[in-house]
């Protein structure tokens, strides 16, 4: 038993290094995709303190809008722009109808409101686009297909071009967001709001405007995530369960940190794939479903605010 847990997996890794690399690569890709979802959460949490449960359905919604528009006969590039527009309208409506009326409520109330939004969008999305899975228009959007085969250690390592594109896109998005947050006027306003709502208001920052911007940014991240996840599997409402995986990612990274979201995503991606492949057999398959949460719990026991989260000093 101990041999099976402690030694055998490493023997397997050593004896088939090409397969090990393959597993690492798939973990890396899964990790970047988790990071992308988590990024959407972090953006909104940083700027408004809302834990946006609806991020998962926003991913599905964005992807469905894109595919739906394309199927309705709109050319791919126009569909992309229209979807971005739709995400803006969604952000504006959310601010106008939901957030504005819930200013100064407790966190759990805002959290519940996003769950309500989640339900509404599920119903609305299924009503408009139908419940059946759709395939993403990856080729029409100019995403690469096919794969390249490497031969390290006399083995095979297959790397799909789509995965590479996903990683590159994630890197671009994160860099763009980092620049946006640190260098632009709006980005500074966002950070001010994140620090202290009242202080930000008192120096003349419009909270309402900031919230629309943040939700719009989260919508764009959701669209990017939706395209990538959709191209890897299908666009269906099952994707929103994947979004729950963003929670452990956030926990590891800390709720307020963009680099944290990236590192948390990678930790979860690697950990999950390695555990599933090398240790999962001991427990029966399907451990992927809960292992991420266990990793997060272990991290939390040592660092209650995540790796990069802000330490909260509590006063009475």
């Amino acid at each position, binding site marked *: 038993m101990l041999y099976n847990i402690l030694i055998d997996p490493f023997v397997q890794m050593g004896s088939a290094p090409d397969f090990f690399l393959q597993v690492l690569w798939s973990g890396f890709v899964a990790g970047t995709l988790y990071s992308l979802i988590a990024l959407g959460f972090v953006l909104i949490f940083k700027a408004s303190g809302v*834990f946006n449960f609806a991020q998962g359905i926003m991913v599905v919604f964005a992807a469905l809008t894109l595919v739906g528009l394309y199927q309705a006969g709109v050319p791919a590039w126009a569909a992309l722009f229209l979807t971005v527009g739709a995400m803006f309208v969604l952000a504006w409506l959310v601010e106008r*109808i*939901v957030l504005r*009326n*819930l200013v100064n*409520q*407790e*966190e*759990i*109330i805002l*959290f*519940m*409101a996003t*769950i*309500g*939004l*989640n*339900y*509404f*969008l*599920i*119903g*609305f999305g*299924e*009503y408009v686009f139908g*419940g059946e899975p759709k395939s993403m228009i990856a080729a029409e959007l100019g995403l690469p297909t096919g794969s390249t085969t490497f031969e390290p250690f006399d083995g095979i390592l297959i790397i799909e071009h789509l995965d590479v594109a996903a990683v590159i896109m994630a890197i671009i998005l994160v860099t763009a967001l980092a620049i946006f947050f640190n260098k632009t006027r709006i980005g500074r306003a966002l950070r001010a709001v994140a620090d202290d709502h009242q202080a930000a208001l008192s120096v003349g920052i419009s909270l309402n405007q900031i919230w629309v911007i943040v939700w719009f940014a989260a919508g764009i991240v959701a669209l990017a995530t939706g395209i990538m996840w959709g191209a890897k599997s299908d666009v269906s409402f099952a994707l929103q*369960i994947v979004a*729950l995986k963003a*929670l*452990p990612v956030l*926990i590891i990274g800390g*709720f307020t940190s963009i680099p944290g979201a990236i590192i948390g995503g990678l930790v979860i991606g690697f950990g999950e794939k390695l555990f599933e492949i090398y240790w999962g057999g001991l*427990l*029966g398959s*399907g*451990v992927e*479903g*809960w292992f991420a*949460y*266990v990793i*997060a*719990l272990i991290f*939390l*026991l040592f660092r*209650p*605010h*995540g790796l990069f989260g802000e330490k909260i000093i*509590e006063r*009475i």
Partner: protein
Amino acid sequence: MFYREVGQFKTNYSSDSQVFPILQDKIGIFAMLVVAFVFVPMFGSEFFLNSIMIPFLIFTLATIGLNILVGYTGQLSLGTGAFMGVGAYSCYKLATIFPDVNIIIMVLLSGFFSAGVGILFGLPSLRIKGFYLLVSTLAAQFFLEWCFIRVEWLYNYNDSGAIDSLQRSAFGYAVSGGAANSHAQYFVVLTIVVVMTWVASNLIRGRIGRSWMMIRDMDIAAELMGVRPLFAKLSAFAVSSFYCGVAGALMVFFWLGSAEVESFDINHSFLFLFMAIIGGLGSLIGCYMGAAFIWILPIIIRALPSALGLDINAATVEHINFMMIGAMIIFFLIVEPHGLARLWQIAKEKLRTWPFPYS
């Protein structure tokens, strides 16, 4: 008007600390019990009992469990479904191992298994709080769901992977399984729910409940004042999971008849959170209102098109149902974040001073 406390004097401490200090409240609760115990079974059809009243009561019980944790102790939880599952599966195992024992005892015993699991997954709450705690309960949710599928011993190695309610009786009546009639089931469920609500209300008013509320309001201050966070938090997890476990066992044996892991999935955890929040966090009557609202509203929405003679297909109705629930949740949060229970309280205040705007 008729809802006044005029002339009702409190002359000693015990009358000052009653659950229902006002005579009209006592009459009201008595009337509700009479309706529930006599009129509903007398006039209610099989369908009404089976698909409205029994699930409503079971959901209320689970919501009370969740409310103890979220509303009274302030520990956010998304693991209700899984804790119900623990109760259901352990009740199933107990009923298989001891076939002759009264099923009601088994249902209550299974709550203790659930409580144990609840304590285990409540341990991280000592170190982490708020949204970070969600991950602990989500870990419970997904890990236990996985167990319900993978550990075949739990469902007696049958091929379907489902647990069926076994043919069991209590006090000489068949109350679960195919031969049970819904009136007997209704009485069992109603009695358990009423008794457990009464127990919960006394727990909450007592020393332990007040320590929960102190932890909720500010844990550091509570600790300074001598509340042991370890005991308070874990006891809240235990009691909450006990309630959820009993609700889960009731759900399988007295309502569904057969359940798979889908009956205990994350969506159910959300459902109970909705009920607790719509009803009102930190209120027992709110649990009843929330459960009634969330359970009965969709039934009405589903029945509405055919009643109005509109021809809408079932899928569309289901979508509208989702949208309505989502919209209603947001609407309620905006209008009254403290839930239906708060509305009820406001109505009672208004009645007290009526016809004057204030007193």
